[in-house]
């Protein structure tokens, strides 16, 4: 490493949270910071309203030219600049003797405090509020518009935080990547970068220290920003881009190199998800999370409401495979009308299928709605219950589903170690099983999924968790029934090899993860997958297991996907 007299050392790596899988190399273009209030503020009191209006008009015209999520976000920001409560607040402060710039700053700050304290969706709008403040203050002080300068060459835009309005001002043909010091993976910058297909790293602490013009490598897969990268990183970046394009063009059904089929399915939660998935090269839906319908609702959705939604989802995949998970409420997904507020250990309490003990009509209505939707669309869904622990629960659920008139396969989720250990008996009564690896890890490792500090224990590579996956897949193989995986681990290309080697018959994941898994599978034979499975199961630790499988995998795949 060579140091420079001042500034950031060559080779220095900033770690953040990546969005997407892209890797790019290019010069840094830093966004202009927010205007700092001079002592005593500034601005002409007669210009206050006009300054707000100029900002609103500019933002609205950018909204009119934009599309999709960006259009809505810009319209919302323009509406904030037109907000009567905000403008009145600022005007009252000016009348009380504050300078216009101070008045705008403080009037916005009141809303920022209010929104921050409220948290959730309101807190996510704080970036937009600050952008209104910056723009109006800059107008009042006669400064250039805060944000990103016009980009002469393709650049990596680096900012403390980027408001959607800043993103809109970007010439996207010249933006190689976006890096921010703040923000989160679910914030606007990340969402819009994702929509535009621009690699993005957020929460890269300290990255604003990098000077304009310095070359950086941004790796969204790793969440890193490297200053003055080695020359070979450029070649790597080009290879990764080629691979991504090739991967997306591949629409063949999921299979290993030697033709062993593994169904590649999508995880969905809404009708919109279903429509998006139906337009993509997937072989069906492996997990339809129905609780999305129930969340934020004070009462249970009616039979008619549910039937309408289920029919829309089944209709999108007419004649295809759609695996519906019945209501999985409780623990981290509380429902106003079904969750007991006073449970001491909700993850171990009345959740998932167990709700049938307290409110059996919830499940009966849902199964009836599914049967009605099947009759309407002529497509029989696969139906499964979450949080099954025993063979008796399995038998009871199958009986309820048949009673409701469902004719398609009826199965259960394997998330509780007890069910995995007795998978053979469970499969005597269920038509199929689906492994929820996130919860299976939580219950195998006795580790709360919501406890961030214990995240290492929740690693799906933990050999004990894999042992239970293996037991389940083996039992399914013996009786010739299907065992899928619909947890997060299915979207990890290396884990996909292991799961295939263990005998898992389908992998269900978010749409974005699918191309990399499809390609990785096709690059390996079933025999190689079995060797990977043996290596993962034979390891003493999660890290050793993953390293062993990585060493066995095709080096080209490992390099191009940055595994």
């Amino acid at each position: 490493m060579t140091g420079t007299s001042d500034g950031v050392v060559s080779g220095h790596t900033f770690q953040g949270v990546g969005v997407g899988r892209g890797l790019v190399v290019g010069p840094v273009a830093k966004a202009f910071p927010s205007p700092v209030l001079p002592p005593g503020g500034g601005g002409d009191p007669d210009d206050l309203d006009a300054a707000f209006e100029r900002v609103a008009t500019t933002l609205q015209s950018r909204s009119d030219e934009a599309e999709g999520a960006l259009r809505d976000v810009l319209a919302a920001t323009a509406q904030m600049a037109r907000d009567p409560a905000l403008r009145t607040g600022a005007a009252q402060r000016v009348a009380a003797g504050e300078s216009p710039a101070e008045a705008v700053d403080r009037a916005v700050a009141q809303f920022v405090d209010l929104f921050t304290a409220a948290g959730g969706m309101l807190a996510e709008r704080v970036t937009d509020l600050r952008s209104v403040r910056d723009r109006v203050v800059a107008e009042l002080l006669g400064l250039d518009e805060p944000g990103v300068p016009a980009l002469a060459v393709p650049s990596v835009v680096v900012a403390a935080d980027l408001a959607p309005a800043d993103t809109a001002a970007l010439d996207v043909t010249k933006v190689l990547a976006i890096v921010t010091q703040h923000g989160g993976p679910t914030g606007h910058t990340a969402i819009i970068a994702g929509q535009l297909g621009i690699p993005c790293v957020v929460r890269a602490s300290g990255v604003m220290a990098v000077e304009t013009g310095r070359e950086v490598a941004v790796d969204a897969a790793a969440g890193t920003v490297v200053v003055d990268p080695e020359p070979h990183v450029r070649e790597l970046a080009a290879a990764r881009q080629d691979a991504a394009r090739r991967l997306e063009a591949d629409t063949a059904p999921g299979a290993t190199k030697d033709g062993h089929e593994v169904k590649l399915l999508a995880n969905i939660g809404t009708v919109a998800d279903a429509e998006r998935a139906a337009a993509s090269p997937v072989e069906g839906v492996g997990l339809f999370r129905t609780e999305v319908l129930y969340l934020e609702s004070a009462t249970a959705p009616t039979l008619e409401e549910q039937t309408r939604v289920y029919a829309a989802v089944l209709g999108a995949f007419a004649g295809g495979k759609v695996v519906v998970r019945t209501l999985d409420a409780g623990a981290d997904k509380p429902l106003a009308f079904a969750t007991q507020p006073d449970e001491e250990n909700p993850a171990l309490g009345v959740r998932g299928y167990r709700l049938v003990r307290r409110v059996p009509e919830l499940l009966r209505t849902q199964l009836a709605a599914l049967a009605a939707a099947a009759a309407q669309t002529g497509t029989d869904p696969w139906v499964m219950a979450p949080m099954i622990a025993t063979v008796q629960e399995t038998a009871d659920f199958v009986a309820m589903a048949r009673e409701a008139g469902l004719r398609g396969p009826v199965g259960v989720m394997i998330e509780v170690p007890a069910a995995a250990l007795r998978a053979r008996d469970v499969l005597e009564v269920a038509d199929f099983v689906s492994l929820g690896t996130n919860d299976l890890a939580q219950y195998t490792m006795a580790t709360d999924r919501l406890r961030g500090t214990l995240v290492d224990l929740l690693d799906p590579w933990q050999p004990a968790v894999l042992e239970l996956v293996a037991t389940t897949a083996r039992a399914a193989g013996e009786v010739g029934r299907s065992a899928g995986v619909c947890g997060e681990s299915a979207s990890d290309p290396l884990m996909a090899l292991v799961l295939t080697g263990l005998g898992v018959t389908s992998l269900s994941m978010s749409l974005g993860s699918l191309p990399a898994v499809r390609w990785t599978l096709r690059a390996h034979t079933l025999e190689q997958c079995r060797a990977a499975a043996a290596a993962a199961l034979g390891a003493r630790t999660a890290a050793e297991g993953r390293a062993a499988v990585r060493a066995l995998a095709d080096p080209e795949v490992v390099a191009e996907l940055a595994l």
Partner: protein
Amino acid sequence: MSERTVAIGSAQGLHARPATLFAQAAGQAGIPVRIGRPGGPAVDASSMLMLMTLSAAHGDEVVVSADGPDADRVLDELAALLAQDLDAQ
């Protein structure tokens, strides 16, 4: 004083896009319109920022109110807007 009680139809509640569209419509109504939770304090319906502080989720009830000869027509239109799923458009 006329008022209408209506359940929020937008899937994501009265945030972002639905709040923008509703505040625009209320601002163009020509008369002052207020909105609040049943029994709670009411805020200026044309202020998107104040609207969002209600944190009204899908299915939550809100009360819109206005005065004057035009109030009933304006409130009917605004109530219909709130009942729609504005995110779906």
